[in-house]
């Protein structure tokens, strides 16, 4: 209020001073007039003096100083050499052959292949094809679907990567027969383009069911598929909405049943939670959303970022495709997390800016006991040398994150996983690149990122 009232109160009194020299009568009349005018002015000033209360405290993320440490991790090419432009749409870790070493399974969306990067000895890999002719595979995850105990692979097939609203998606399970042999089982086909498949026992019958996310284009949906046994599944639609990117399954509300979180892009830009009441009954609610239709949600992963024992959600926005002649960054692109506060309550926190952000993962990168975040950039102004392709958001232990640039090249990094820990217990990361648009000057396919050996 800046001391308004006291100054204002002095003003009317000065008007009341009889200083007119034209006589008492006129003085009295003038006095009344003056009094009226004075009160009018006072009222006017009082009105003018009333300030609107300060605006409610709102604040977007401040920009902490960006640190650059291009030597923190070194990259090593793994897998087969490439020609043309690789379209690695997803990398995931799994010990597929049960030899105690983490392997990488990944999708090559241009070649329509699901592949296996087998870690044959620490840091040494051999690549092989697990399945061909799966149209535009974009997600692979492991789950033990049979009594064999071997991890099978759940594959999301879009049918075509670029915009298409036809029902050309499919859900495929690569049944692990052992000995590096896999049997391709098509669980669902001719459905809206599928972008994620994950397994959990949603109805408590002892069989792993599937959660299926379908981006579609104009029409999409999320459904859970009840496992009836003998590779038969029954669909249960949870929500019809296009643009689903990723699913995360966890018991978010602590009631003992696996729930499903789903992130939707397109114009919706929302995260939904489907709370499982057991026996396959779900209630959907919106956990978070942006009214910015160009927010560009690009990925979501499960984590426990604050290590409170409750599953949190880490997500990115950075899909740079849009109405311009080329894909590119937006000021709001970045990484954020939804803190699970228990009882179905979540709180949004911005972690930091990152143009073209994709594939955030929680990982204690420096071994300080705090979960950091590493994310990639798939869409950036790559013609500018300062464009960033990998960032580490270092957690100070109070959930404040300082961005450290880990790499400017190679460009177009789309997918990331923490593979394993080295002999010193330091994390090893694997990235996959998706070179669907130029420039093609700094390409990669699969890279293994490690801390350099101590001198």
């Amino acid at each position, binding site marked *: 209020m800046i001391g308004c009232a006291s100054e204002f109160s002095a003003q009317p009194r000065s008007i009341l001073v009889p200083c007119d020299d034209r006589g008492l009568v006129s003085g009295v009349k003038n006095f009344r007039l003056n009094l009226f005018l*004075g009160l009018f002015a006072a009222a006017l*000033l009082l009105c003018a003096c009333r300030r609107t209360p300060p605006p409610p405290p709102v604040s977007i993320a401040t920009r902490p100083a960006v640190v650059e440490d291009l030597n923190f991790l070194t990259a090593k090419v793994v897998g087969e050499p490439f020609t043309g432009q690789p379209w690695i749409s997803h990398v995931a870790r799994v010990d597929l052959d049960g030899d105690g070493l983490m392997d990488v399974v990944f999708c090559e969306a241009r070649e329509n292949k699901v592949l296996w990067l087998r870690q044959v000895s620490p840091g040494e890999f051999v690549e092989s094809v697990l399945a061909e002719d799966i149209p535009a595979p974009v997600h692979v995850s492991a789950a033990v679907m049979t009594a064999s105990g071997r991890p099978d692979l759940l594959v999301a097939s879009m*049918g075509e990567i670029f915009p298409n609203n036809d029902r050309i998606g499919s859900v495929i399970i690569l049944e692990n027969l052992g000995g590096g042999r896999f049997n391709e089982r098509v669980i669902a086909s001719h459905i809206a383009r599928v972008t994620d498949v994950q397994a959990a026992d949603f109805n408590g019958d002892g069989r792993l069911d599937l959660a299926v996310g379908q981006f579609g284009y*104009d029409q999409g949906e999320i459904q859970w598929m009840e496992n009836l046994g003998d590779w038969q599944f029954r669909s249960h639609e949870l929500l019809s909405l296009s643009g689903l990117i990723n699913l995360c399954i966890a018991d978010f509300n602590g009631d003992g049943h696996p729930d499903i979180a789903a992130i939707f892009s397109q114009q919706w830009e929302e995260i939904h939670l489907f709370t499982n009441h057991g026996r396959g009954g779900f209630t959907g609610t919106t956990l978070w959303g942006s009214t910015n239709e160009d927010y560009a949600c690009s990925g979501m992963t499960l984590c426990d970022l604050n290590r409170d024992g409750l599953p949190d959600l880490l997500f990115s926005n950075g899909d740079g495709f*849009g109405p311009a002649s080329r894909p590119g960054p937006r000021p709001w692109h970045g990484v954020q997390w939804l803190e699970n506060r228990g009882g179905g309550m979540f709180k949004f926190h911005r972690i930091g800016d990152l143009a073209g952000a994709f594939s955030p993962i929680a990982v204690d990168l420096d071994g300080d006991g705090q979960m950091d975040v590493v994310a990639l950039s798939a869409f950036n102004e790559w013609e500018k040398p300062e464009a960033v392709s990998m960032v580490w958001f270092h957690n100070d232990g109070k959930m404040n994150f300082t961005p450290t640039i880990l790499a400017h090249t190679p460009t177009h990094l789309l997918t990331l996983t923490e593979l394993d820990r080295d002999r010193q217990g330091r994390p090893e990361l694997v990235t996959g690149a998706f070179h669907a648009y130029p420039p093609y000057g700094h390409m990669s396919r699969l890279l293994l990122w490690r801390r350099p050996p101590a001198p």
Partner: protein
Amino acid sequence: MSAALIAAAAVAGFAWWRSEQNRQLMVAGLPMRPPLTGANHELPERVAACEQHLRAGRHALASLVELSRLYHANGFFPEAERCYQLLMQTDPGNARWPYLLATIVAGYGQLDEAWPLWQRVVALAPDYGPAKIRLGDAFLKLNDYERAAAAYTQAIGGAKGDEAYAQVGLARVDLHFERWAAARPRLEAAVAQTDYRIGGDLLTTVYEQTGDPARALEIRGRAKSSGSFSDINDPWAEEIFTDCYDVYRLQVAGGMAEHRGDPAAARELIEHALTLAPDDTGTLYQLGMLQLRQEALTEARRCFQRCVELRPDFPDGWAQLIGLLEHTGDRIGAERTLLTALAQCPRSPGLHLDHGRMLVQAGRTAEAMEEFRTSIRLRPEEAAAYLALATACFSLERVDEGMQELRKALKAEPDNPMALSTLAIAAIRTDHEAEARALLHRIKQQPRVAAKDLAALLAEYQTQFNRLFD
């Protein structure tokens, strides 16, 4: 009289005092100037001038307004946010400031902070429809369906464009509660008002849920992918771009303006970008495409011509230029240009495909097939070159080879209408009923196969196998 003078003096004095207080508040609250290196030289100059004017007390409010626009339009959002907060304190009756502030914070997904601002805007400027829509959207995403519906309802009866968004918002509330029948007329109204720019995606789902698959297929059949949504016309948010010096942001804003059906605004924004970077081929290409869609062919050609002059290795610029030459009947010019383009861009799959098509027209089918194969090798993930190659094979009566290419086309685009239909005809004519039936089932689910083509296929099936396809 004296009293009036005194009152006037008091008011003036207070106004001066108030203005000075505000100025001091603004100066004290000014955001730190961010690094503006690399920006157009005018931007740092104008920012500095605004700060100087503010400190000197010259047009303080106007200077702060200009500063806020400069920061907002050029993507310096924390600084813009600070300016809007100051403006809300010093110009509290102006609804623009909370509106634009809310736009920023909501743009980051902080709806808990945005909705009270939009609520304030609705109170201050009840005629500004986008605020009601944004408020409704915020409540919807915060699971407050009652307040969302109330906000959307306030926008009904407003501007026609706003009303369509309100109807879609209310439909989303209905859909949350599975009130399909209630959502349907709202979405039908929205698509009617906007010619399917919004609402068509949800309406398709509603038709499917309410047992009207034919109408759902009719909408699905309109395009391979519509991506129909365009944001509400929002003059307050859009006017700041006159102060934008960021070419890419202007391109994006221009693209959005065109997408929401405002080519004039789009052109203004893209031309603004061109004044900043006259030789930016991305902007020139975007303007060319805009002109092309507006059928301003001469202007479009000029843009594409300039694109390839500046960047001879830019295949899309060449492709559009060639297309324009063909469209205007200059076949020789198109051929000559295509050969020049291929010399400059030998790894362009699109140009090889175009060359192949041109060779087919000239009766040089064997050479055309080589071009199609080159296109496939460079871009195996798209169906067009496989289809062109298949057609060429059929013209040479190399049917088996053509069929193989069609199957490859279906791997690239699994429900490609032409590939499905041609394969179905072949299966029928070669007496492969099981395959024909499988293909016909897929075709019946493919809304982009024209009804008359489907009818012809079904008739041929009936003739061949002496029974109706069920």
